[in-house]
Structures are given as structure tokens and as C-alpha cells.
């Protein structure tokens, strides 16, 4: 059969009851270099409903600049506990804040781990400035979503590998799957049980999903969209029209994420 049942269902209904999507890489609010038609949490929920996304794990755009804005996401999670979870952004340009933020992390409900944006913050993920967050995440088995990009001096797959050697218990999510440096990213995702390939933007590249599934396995791949950047249908469509099985698609679109976030849910997800 050329077109799977899952693909037919999404093409017809725009969503699937049997395959509720979890977005492991989302944001919130306006941002510098882009016009967003749908930037608010309410806008995002409308989009998520339209596309069958049951939960998004987000870091607000404002918190990528000023970590005090992490509290915005706490409010959003509190308001919409069935739809959102959050990452606490660590900005290594303000290391004096990090220690305090990590110390109070356990008090902040709805956060499943940390978010690093090293290409923009201009400190490598191996910098000592990230150590307090990484050590805490490793101790507690938290998620760490890192923006990763091929051949970057700040967050290349090779640098993720260095972290994976040291931190074996933290769940290291390679945001964008080290875009462009596919072979190395897939190798790191395959070799380290706690490293995951996250698909945001990577899914656009024709053939890369098949390559990841073949080499690293569908259980090491997570779905993400940068919402409110990218229409979830774009990424879902890339997964659906890749030459993989529906079981692989279920793994990527929700099963793997469910396993990862379940231990960290303090309030029940829809």
C-alpha cells in the first residue's frame, strides 16, 4: 500500500485520534526576525487542536533573551495544564542567575527540564556556565533541549557527544538534529541511549527521516515544530510521507515523547 491509513486520516481530517501528536520543541510569543500570525498561547492552542497536537513543551521567546521571563511559561502551564509543559531557559551570559534558577527549579511546576540556545547565546554547550543545569538535570533525569546545528562551534553534534559521555542520566534532546551534519548527529543519537534526535526544521530535508529511522531507530526520534514558527502540519506531513512504517510514525509523533515526559508530569496531560 502506497499511502498509509495514518496519512489518509491526516490528509482528510487534519488530525488523527489514534495518533495524538506531542510537540517537544515549541516556543511562545512574538520574536525579533519574524511575523507570527499566531503567537499567543490561545492562538497556539487553536493551531494544536487543528493539527491534533495534544501537548507542546515550550520555552517562551522572551525567556531566550531574559531568563526572568521563564515565569511566563509557568503561568501558561498553570492556565492550560492539559496543553503545555515548559523548559527553563538557561542563558550563559548571566551565570550569576543560573545557580539560583537551578536551586529553585524543583519549585517551578510544569517544567520538564532546561533549554539551551547556544548558537545565539554564544557559549558552547560544553562551557562551565551550563554545568549547574547539566549536573542537576543529570541527577534528576531531566530533559535538556539544546538547539543544535551542524559544524557549529557552540552546539554541533560532536559537542553533544562530549556531553553525552559525561552526563548519562539527563535526557539530551538534539534540537534540529544538528541540522546539516546528519551523519554525525545520527551516530550520536544511535550510540548514546540518553541522546534523542529532535526533528524541528530537520524534517524538511528530503530523505533525512528515513536515514534517521534506518540508522538510529524510530525510538530515538522526537517531533518538534518551533511553534508558533512552523505549522505542525508541515512537520507531520514530512513524517507521514517519509518511507517508514506507521509504527515508526507513532514512535516519532507521540510515543517516545510520552515516555520521556511521563515521569516529570506533576499535573495530568490530556
Amino acid at each position, binding site marked *: 500500500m502506497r499511502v498509509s491509513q495514518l496519512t489518509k486520516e491526516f490528509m482528510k481530517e487534519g488530525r488523527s485520534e489514534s495518533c495524538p501528536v506531542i510537540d517537544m520543541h515549541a516556543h511562545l510569543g512574538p520574536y525579533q526576525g519574524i511575523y507570527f500570525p499566531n503567537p499567543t498561547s490561545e492562538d497556539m492552542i487553536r493551531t494544536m487542536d487543528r493539527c491534533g497536537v495534544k501537548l507542546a513543551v515550550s520555552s517562551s521567546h522572551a525567556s531566550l533573551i531574559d531568563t526572568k521571563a521563564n515565569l511566563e511559561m509557568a503561568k501558561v502551564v498553570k492556565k492550560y495544564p492539559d496543553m503545555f509543559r515548559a523548559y527553563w531557559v538557561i542563558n550563559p551570559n548571566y551565570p550569576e542567575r543560573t545557580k539560583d534558577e537551578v536551586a529553585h527549579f524543583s519549585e517551578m511546576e510544569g517544567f520538564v527540564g532546561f533549554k539551551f540556545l547556544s548558537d545565539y547565546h554564544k557559549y558552547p554547550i560544553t562551557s562551565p556556565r551550563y554545568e549547574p543545569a547539566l549536573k542537576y538535570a543529570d541527577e534528576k533525569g531531566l530533559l535538556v533541549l539544546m538547539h543544535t546545528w551542524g559544524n557549529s562551534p557552540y552546539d554541533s553534534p560532536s559537542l553533544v557527544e562530549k556531553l553525552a559521555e559525561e552526563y548519562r542520566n539527563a535526557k539530551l534532546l538534539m534540537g534540529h538534529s544538528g541540522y546539516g551534519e546528519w551523519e554525525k548527529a545520527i551516530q550520536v543519537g544511535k550510540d548514546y541511549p540518553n541522546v534523542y534526535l529532535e526533528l524541528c526544521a530537520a524534517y524538511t530535508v528530503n530523505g533525512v527521516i528515513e536515514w534517521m529511522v534506518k540508522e538510529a531507530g524510530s525510538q530515538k526520534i522526537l517531533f518538534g515544530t518551533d511553534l508558533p*514558527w512552523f505549522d505542525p502540519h508541515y*512537520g507531520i*506531513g*514530512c513524517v507521514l510521507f517519509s518511507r517508514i512504517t506507521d509504527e515508526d510514525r507513532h514512535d516519532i509523533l507521540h510515543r517516545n515523547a510520552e515516555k520521556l515526559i511521563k515521569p516529570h508530569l506533576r499535573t495530568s496531560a490530556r
Partner: protein
Amino acid sequence: MKFFDCNMSFGTSMIRPIRYAETAQNLLEEMDYCSIDEALVYHARQRDDSPVIGNDMLLNEIEAFNRLHGTLAILPLQTEELGTMETIVRKMKERNIRAFRAFPAEHRYLMTRTSLAPLYDLMVERNIPLFIDITQSCGGISGWHLVSTILSEVPDLTLVVTEHGPWGHDRYFRPLIEKHENLHLDTSRYELDGGITDFCKKYGAVKLLFGTGYPKWNPGGPKLTLAGADITTKERRKIASGNLERLLRRVKM
């Protein structure tokens, strides 16, 4: 719903894509998998080689397949590599070619009237659309600046800009869309959440053409994005195939 892709390519290119169609037959198999009915195509050698070689390779490859519609790569006529205007028009008539593509970065020419006036005049007189992807550059200008320059020099040109990229291009292209009636965009990388819906509310659906950018990009993204956009069925059909069919139908050969 019929999907008519305005932006597909096949053939062996200098840089190997992860997945690609080596022949026209292979491309049809890829289109079948993605339920894409027809496509406006170019051959990788039209970009990576001399258009003299690539244009003929394309025409020979697609001759047997009525689901594939060709585009000719252009060059300034002054070097006479593509022959005279008469030979180009004759070839287009004989092979039912109704669109041009420009690769000024690879083929090293300026997209000015000084370089391309006879071809630009032909395109305007006969309503022949010109396709160019947003990564193209020439003479030190690129992207939307290049598009703006082309349309300033040839305001009546039917120009289709492909693969405009996901990193927030609306602030670039919306002023140009408002100014130039014949500027169109393909949807291959219009990934912005709510982008197609918002665009259609403001400008209608006539300036968007369904495209995938195959083999570089995954066709599933633009397919499901268009299928799921919050627009009317009529608007969806226009973008999926109607607008491209209209552009090709109005070409006077």
C-alpha cells in the same frame, strides 16, 4: 483534489541530495507516492551544467510523459549559446514549453534589462512566467533585493519566486506582493504557522502556487500544510493546481 507541483527537479546533480529521482520515470514514481498529479520540472543539469546541455536533456527526458511540463533555463542572448530568439520560440512551440527558469548564480549573468531585454520582452508579450528560487544571486545582490530589482526593471513580468524559506520572509515579500500584481510565490517552504491562511485573507489565493522543491525538500510538508490550511475549498484548489494551470494557459505561443 488535483496537485500540480510548480517546483520539482530530477536528474543527477553535482551535490547529491539524500533522496532524488535520477530519471523522469523515477520522478513520476516519487510523484505517485506523494499523490502529486502533474509537475512543472527542470533537470538538475539545467542548473549544474550549461543550459545548452541541460535544456536538451530535459526536453528529451520528459517527451514521453504528459504529466511532466518543462521549463527552459535562460541565458543572455548575446553569447548566442541558446540560439536566436526565433530558435528559442520555435523550440518552445514544438515542445510545448510554457515557462522559463533563471539560475544567474550558477550561470553568471546579470538579471538586468541590459542583459536580458529581448527575453524579458518576450516573457511580457507572451505572458511566459519566469521561475527563480530565492537563494539565487547575481552582481552582488540576492534574495528579495534581487526580486525587487528584477520587478523594478520589468514590472509586468510574471515572476514566480520559489523556496522563500521559513525564517520569517513575510516582512520581505508582502510589500512586493502589494506592489507587483504578477509576483507569485510557491508554497514549498511557506511553513509559517497560519501563513497561508493569513496570506489568503489579505491577498486572496491567486498568488500562491503549490510547490514542493523536490528533491531537496520533503514533499509531505507542503502537501499537508495546504490540505490543512484554514481556507476555503475553492482557495485550496486554486493553490493546489488552478493558479499554475491559469498561468500556463494564458501563455501565448
